[in-house]
């Protein structure tokens, strides 16, 4: 347990960035990870606790010129209730549908899910499929600056991301997928609600004339971070979606997944699950 010397609830991004520049800040958004982690002693508070809920412009979805910007304090419920997410970003919507419980979806934020960087983080797998980018705001020399990092490069390890202490995750950006894009998310846990994924899979591709292109596949809970599955993607790209392609893709999954054994499952079980559930997902796409 560490001592908080100051609590701040800035109203603007400028103000938040000023506080971050002074250093030693723990950022609070929904609190659903921060509270239990601090109570369990897994996280030590910095001397300043900064609540970003009231920062103007950080919550909500805006689509401009084919780019969707999701503000960092947008809750999982906000995403779940969005018609745009439901109709055009199926994998992300399905992940929100399987996310914890209503009470946690109402409080938890997309920015928090990203910064918590759990290998099993539910929204992270579909965001990887959607080639999401993380928008980081800072104020190094008295003026607000913005840095954009592909989500794929943002995760370093469990709970570790490429965010400088002076930076705030302000938003996630997604290029809206092209016409004909289909996507899906699968999560396996021992019960439907409030479970941490044993494994999760995200899939997305343009499926036209029986062939796949622009294929993106991501796995959760089979590596120290959520990962893209380049071998699976290569096995599917440009191929007709038939039995042979599906078998090849499932074989390739073994080269991408690097699971460990833990309290939720053994590494063997996770490999089998990834293989079998990927097969099921691809068959679902094939059968429309």
């Amino acid at each position, binding site marked *: *347990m560490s*001592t*908080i*010397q*100051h*609590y701040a*609830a800035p109203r603007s991004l400028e103000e938040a960035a000023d506080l971050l520049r002074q250093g030693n800040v723990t950022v*609070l958004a*929904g*609190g*659903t990870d*921060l*509270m*239990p982690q*601090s*109570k369990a002693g897994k996280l030590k*508070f910095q001397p300043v*606790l900064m*609540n970003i*809920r*009231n920062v103007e412009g950080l919550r909500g979805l805006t689509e401009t010129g084919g780019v969707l910007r999701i503000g960092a304090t947008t809750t999982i*419920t906000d995403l779940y209730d969005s018609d745009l997410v439901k109709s055009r970003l199926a994998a992300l919507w399905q992940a929100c549908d399987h996310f*914890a*419980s*209503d*009470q*946690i979806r*109402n*409080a938890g934020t997309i920015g928090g899910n990203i910064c918590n960087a759990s290998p099993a983080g539910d929204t992270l797998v579909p965001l990887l499929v959607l080639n999401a980018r993380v928008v980081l705001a800072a104020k190094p020399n008295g003026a607000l600056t913005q840095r954009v990092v592909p989500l794929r490069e943002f995760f370093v390890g469990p709970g570790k991301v490429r965010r400088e202490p002076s930076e705030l995750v302000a938003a996630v950006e997604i290029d809206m997928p092209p016409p004909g894009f289909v996507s899906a998310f699968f999560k396996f846990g021992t019960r*439907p*609600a*409030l479970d941490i994924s044993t494994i999760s899979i995200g899939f997305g591709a343009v499926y036209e004339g029986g062939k796949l292109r622009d294929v993106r596949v991501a796995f959760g809970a089979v590596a120290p971070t959520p990962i893209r599955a380049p071998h699976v993607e290569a096995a599917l790209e440009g191929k007709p979606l038939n039995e042979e392609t599906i078998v090849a893709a499932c074989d390739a999954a073994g080269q991408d997944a690097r699971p460990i054994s833990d309290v939720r499952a053994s590494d063997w079980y996770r490999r089998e699950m990834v293989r079998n559930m990927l097969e099921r997902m691809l068959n679902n796409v094939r059968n429309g």
Partner: protein
Amino acid sequence: MSAMVDITFKLNGINRKTRVSATMSALDMVRDVLGLTGTKYGCGEGECGACTISVDGITLNSCLMFAADCDGRDVMTIEGLAADRKGEALRDSFVEHGAVQCGFCTPGFVMQAHHVLEKNPDASEAEIQRGIEGNLCRCTGYRKIVDAIAGVAAAAK
């Protein structure tokens, strides 16, 4: 000792001012600072829903919320809902359907049931079940709780 934060918010319709530690949960504030013990401490990590409260019209686990984050917001606990006509309807239906055994989970269930029906007054049984996924009951087996909530939904039609 962590920093103390002065907060002002609406609690069950009444403006309140209080002083809380920066690390304190909303649950601890409601129970130990404000003396409203209807909200229960179950698991303390968001798994059981016994501590469900409503903030700005949506439910969340008060054990996962920082008390300081209540500043400027509209908080309702089971005591506030119990004094409301809709809360009475839920209470009566829980009693009528025998949806209460030990009663520890009941305040959380009633808070969440209220939220489910506010968002979707016509909620189907399946939608009610989805809505209360974040609430655990170790006595009733849920059947009677779902029936009690569905009873209120049906009566509203």
